[in-house]
């Protein structure tokens, strides 16, 4: 039996690219089809009935028709437009950052339901989270779990001994921590304070509610951002583009980022 000509799926719009005069190619992240690319016709014109339902950072129920190259979007109904996010410069930027990560760490047409759930939950919770920076770190750690790069934070990846409560180093190329005995002579790594190690372990092994319960200061926040950013960059072998924008905002505008 051949596949039906049209189908419907929930989707979060994670990327859009202009095509021709008024069309777009959209990247949709779906619960069961993984990441898919689809064409949306005429959505850049104000008369488009679909445009509002297909904007970035929108959770929609999308109908598609199978096409020769790309499937074509024939209908879309917004489930959640995350207005609280979109009305806030810092939140929008955080949300764009996490969708860029999802796009970079996934391949087309590979189902990853837990990652869809994680993305949806993060977009839903981001505006209510006390500390957005911690929410981003939570997202990064759990994204790495879902794409197979869970960092080893409990024992030394070289000698396998449990880590002592001292400064230990995170080493991106080994994907985990090195104890002080093993770190000399190893590739470049990030020395982490005892508190930073604690927070990372807590975030890695808890659900979202932990983010609101933790309180950290600016210095610790910076330390966590640096090590996670370093690991992500190592894995992707390039910069995460929207991370630069988050830095710009933090520097130029006195945003309340926490």
């Amino acid at each position, binding site marked *: 039996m051949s596949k039906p000509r049209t189908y419907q799926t929930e989707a979060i719009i994670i*990327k859009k690219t202009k095509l*021709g*005069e*008024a069309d777009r190619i959209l990247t949709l992240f779906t619960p069961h089809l993984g990441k898919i690319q689809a064409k949306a016709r005429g*959505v*850049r*014109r*104000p*008369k*488009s009935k679909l*445009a*509002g*339902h*297909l*904007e*970035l*950072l929108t959770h929609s129920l999308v109908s598609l028709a199978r096409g020769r190259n790309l499937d074509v979007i024939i209908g879309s109904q917004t489930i959640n437009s995350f207005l609280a996010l*979109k009305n*806030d*410069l810092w939140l*929008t*930027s955080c949300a*764009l*950052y996490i*969708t*860029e990560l999802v*796009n970079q760490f996934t391949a087309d047409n590979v189902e990853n339901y837990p990652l869809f759930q994680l993305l949806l939950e993060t977009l839903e919770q981001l505006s209510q989270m006390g500390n957005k920076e911690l929410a981003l770190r939570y997202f990064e750690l759990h994204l790495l779990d879902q794409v197979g790069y869970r960092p080893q934070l409990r024992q030394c990846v070289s000698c396998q001994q449990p880590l002592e409560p001292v400064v230990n180093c995170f080493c991106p190329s080994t994907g985990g921590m090195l104890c002080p005995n093993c770190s000399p002579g190893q590739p470049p790594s990030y020395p982490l304070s005892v508190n930073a190690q604690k927070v990372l372990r807590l975030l890695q092994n808890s659900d979202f509610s932990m983010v609101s319960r933790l309180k950290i200061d600016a210095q610790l926040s910076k330390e966590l951002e640096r090590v996670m950013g370093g690991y992500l960059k190592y894995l992707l072998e390039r910069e995460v*583009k*929207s991370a*630069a*924008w*988050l830095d*710009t*905002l933090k520097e*130029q*505008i006195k945003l309340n980022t926490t």
Partner: protein
Amino acid sequence: MEQNPIPAAQAINRLIEELSKLPGIGPKSAQRLAFHLLRAPEEQSKLLAEAILSLKQKITLCSICFNVTESDPCPICRSDQRDRSQICIVEQPQDILALEHTGIYRGLYHVLHGAISPTEGVGSEDIRIRELLRRLEDGSVKEVILATNPNLEGEQTAMYLSRLISPLGIKVTRLARGLPFGTELEYADDITLTRAIEGRQEF
């Protein structure tokens, strides 16, 4: 061994190839245009070629507002009929065409040449924001109208500009929300645009 294509066909193919690089022109339309030009009088091709060449040779960007112009500063920046206390911020020169077509706005413009798009690597340094801030320094501008596109990038750019400009004591307004979200200003009709300018709100 392959035979060389005949020269005439080569010239046609070259034209088709160039034409199909234009927006909205597929290979079929490019072919139709090329054969039309082949049959048309030589004069027509000459005029077309000249028009295309002069576009690149004569058109520059206005050094004040960055609109496309044949003379610098552009006619709008030079005009004494325009209200110099208002600057309307747009993403593209095409947006000025759309707004001028309504005839309702009498202030000046500033073209950003893009919108902030973090995931594409377009930040505040990549569009003409620094030049805008310089224009606001002498205190003659009393209102800045944010007319960036009603989509995520345009909204984000507007929010960012508002954060930069409001502290300078300049009134910042945003086009009214009559424009549907997710779309682009360039394609809006006169009535919708006129209402959007008239109904602009403090941002």
